[in-house]
Structures are given as structure tokens and as C-alpha cells.
């Protein structure tokens, strides 16, 4: 069973559609009981909306502890867009807000001095700088769809994919059982479908 966490503002409709297309048994949840992990083999943390609102929802639904348990017990977790940012320590969206803190990284806002149009909307290539199972059967520098104003800086330890908008940042990060992608695989045609399939096959 794959669990998709509903954080309120998310476009879970799109994520569910692709899972249905791949014929994956899915459960949409707003709450995980700490005892029910035996049914859940994978977790997707999707995300559209604001960092602060999403963290508020996580706290309101008592999700933080159970998500930490899931991470510590080694269940693969994929964070998409805001979902990836939530895995970091802090974001500066809507004032400094604490995230789940799994990656020792801070989320920052793009600046117009470097990046002409914000939000960054559109297709861009991902440079796969480290080998990882999540990239199986995806050509290096394939194009995927991005939609964001905040970014995760490059980290020697965790960055496995880099994208460039006149300014380089992390488009894919990974650590142990954690995977985060800044783009929307559920909206990225064939390369995106492949990435989700890779996550399911982990």
C-alpha cells in the first residue's frame, strides 16, 4: 500500500491519477496512526501551496511524529515540490518556518537579480550528478516540469540532480530512504512517469 499524504492545499488529484495509471494501490491519508505502518510500504508527500500552511496542517493532524517514525523505520518517502522542501530544516516562505528537518538544508526564495521571471514555470533539464536508482531509465538532462518560487541550495552531501535558471540549485535530493524532487513528476510526461515508477520499484 502506498500512502499519499493530503496536506490541504495539494494537487493530490494529479498524483492519484498517475498512480492509478500505473495501477498502484493507493490510500490518501491526512493522518497516520503510529501503529499502522505495517500496511504502508511507501509514502508520497506531494505539495502545492505555502510552506507554513502545510507545516500547520502536519502539526494539526499530529502527522509529524508518525512521519518521523516512518522515516526512521526506513520506509521510502518521496517529497514532490513543496513536499521536498518540507523535508528540509527551515524555509523562509512566510517568515522563518521550521520544516521536518530530515535534510540539514534551508529553503530560500529566488531573487529577481539572478532569475528573470519568478515563479519559475516551465520545463527544464535535470543534470544527474550522482547515480541513483530513482534515475533508472531516465536519460541524463531529460526535461521535467517546474513550478516554484523557492528553492533548495546545492549540497555536496544530498544533491543528486541539479537544474539551472541562470542560477544552479537542487532539483533532486536524496539521503537513505528519502527522495525529494523540486519538479512535478506527475506533470512531466514520460520522464516523470518513469521516476514515479522507479520510486514504486524501490
Amino acid at each position, binding site marked *: 500500500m502506498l500512502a499519499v499524504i493530503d496536506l490541504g492545499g495539494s494537487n493530490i*488529484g494529479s498524483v492519484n491519477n498517475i498512480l492509478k495509471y500505473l495501477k498502484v494501490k493507493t490510500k490518501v491519508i491526512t493522518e497516520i496512526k503510529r501503529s499502522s505502518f505495517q500496511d504502508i510500504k511507501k509514502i508520497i508527500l506531494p505539495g502545492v501551496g505555502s510552506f507554513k500552511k502545510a507545516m500547520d496542517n502536519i502539526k494539526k493532524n499530529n502527522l509529524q511524529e508518525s512521519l518521523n517514525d516512518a522515516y526512521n523505520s526506513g520506509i521510502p518517502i518521496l517529497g514532490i515540490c513543496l513536499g521536498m522542501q518540507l523535508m528540509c530544516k527551515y524555509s523562509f516562505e512566510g517568515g522563518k518556518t521550521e520544516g521536518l528537518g530530515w535534510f540539514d538544508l534551508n529553503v530560500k526564495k529566488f531573487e529577481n537579480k539572478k532569475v528573470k521571471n519568478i515563479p519559475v514555470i516551465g520545463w527544464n533539464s535535470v543534470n544527474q550528478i550522482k547515480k541513483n536508482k530513482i534515475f533508472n531509465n531516465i536519460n541524463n538532462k531529460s526535461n521535467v516540469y517546474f*513550478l516554484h518560487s523557492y528553492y533548495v541550495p546545492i549540497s555536496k552531501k544530498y544533491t543528486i540532480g541539479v537544474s539551472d535558471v541562470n542560477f544552479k540549485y537542487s532539483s533532486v535530493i536524496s539521503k537513505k530512504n528519502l527522495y525529494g524532487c523540486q519538479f512535478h513528476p506527475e506533470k*512531466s510526461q514520460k520522464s516523470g512517469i518513469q521516476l514515479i515508477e522507479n520510486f514504486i520499484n524501490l
Partner: protein
Amino acid sequence: MLKKRLIAVIIVSDNKVIQTKNFKHTNIIHYDPIFSVEAMGKWSLDELIIINASKKNNSKQFLKLINTISKKVFLPLTVGGWVNDIQYSKNLLLSGADKILINTAFYKNKKFIKDFVEIYGSQCLVASVDTKRENNKDIAFIDRCRISTGTETIEWCKKVSQMGAGEIFLNSYENDGTNKGLYIRLFQQISSNLSIPTILFGGVSSWAHLEKGFKTKANAVAAANIFHYSESSVTNAKEYLIKKKINLRYD
């Protein structure tokens, strides 16, 4: 580098794909919007915009259509028409839409726009701005070009951007559905002056018209009618544009 985007627009009235000229319905192109998306080459598309231009509000029927389309295509989906409250926006997002296109509410329902940005964020909000000539000026109009805002289009674009739009979808009354090409002079000026992305639409009747649009500072060019009249049209348009060295996704 970030690629420019080639977008197909599907205008529906009672869930049939229609053609418009100067914002008036002229004829039905397809009875099945899903078929028309498949036929134009869905894997080549960078994004899809679906506008509900039905004369009466038929939100339930439209939601069902979005639900069906979003199960068939895995690309960014922007939808609009008759959007005037949070509940309907939420239902559209739950049906698989990624971005909501809003026009008239920027003028008539500012409270809704404010709430929308707070809940879903600017990246989810595309402002649709229609321009029309009035007293020798380019003026922004609402309600499918029936009511003037009295504000010059470029100023209106700045205003909707300040109100929280994450992107602007531009159309021109005089160009819509004609074979004149895009309203380049004004659109060039707007896309050079804004810090948010712009999508240019209205009047594309050849691949060369698309090319002209891509040579402005705009991030995206959109077309409707032209994509419906030939098989694999989007794929063919991309091949043409790639040859002309436009920076597009092509893999």
C-alpha cells in the same frame, strides 16, 4: 536553461470544442475534447489550458470533463471560466487542475483573489487579461471583452501581478480567431516590463506566428484553432520551431 513553452488552448462550450473569432463563438470544431487532445500529439505538448466559455454556468459538467482529461494526460493543466469562489477552485484542483485561470474576478471580486492567493499561492493563479482598442488606446476588458476596466492593459497587468497572479495569459480582442498573428507590439512591451511569466495568445494561424511570439521576452505562446485542424499538429509545430532555434523541450 528553462525552456519556453508551447501551449494548446481548448475552448469549450457545453463540453464541445468551439472556435471563436473576436470572442464570439463561430462553430464547433470537435464534439469530444479528449479526442482533440489525443489527436494534436499530447506527448509533445508542454501545457494545456482549458477554458469554459459556456454561455451559462455549467460547473458540474465542466468538472467532469477536467476529471476525465486529467486522467489521460500527465502534463500541466490550467483551467478557467466561471471561477468566482474558493469552493469551485478547490473542486477544479481536486479534479486534476494545477493552475486556475481567472479574469473577471480580478476586477469584481478582489476578496476572492486575496483568499485564493493565501490558500493556494501565486504559483497556482494565472490572470487572464484581455486587451481591446478603445479611444486609440490598449485597454483591459473583462467579461469576455464586454466590459471595460478603463485601465490601460499594461497597467492592468502590473495591477494583477501585485494582487498575486503568478503568471499572465494575454489575449487580444482584435486578433482573437483571426489570421493576423499575435498582437506582438503590445505583448512585447508587457512581457519586457513584468517580472512574472507571460503567455501570448490570440490570432495564431501559422507556425511563423508562433515563432514571432517566441522571439519576444514571453515565456510561452499558446494557440487554439490551428492545432485542431491537422493530425499531430503540436509535434509538427515543435519541429518547425526547433529548426528556427527556439529553446523548447524536445525529447
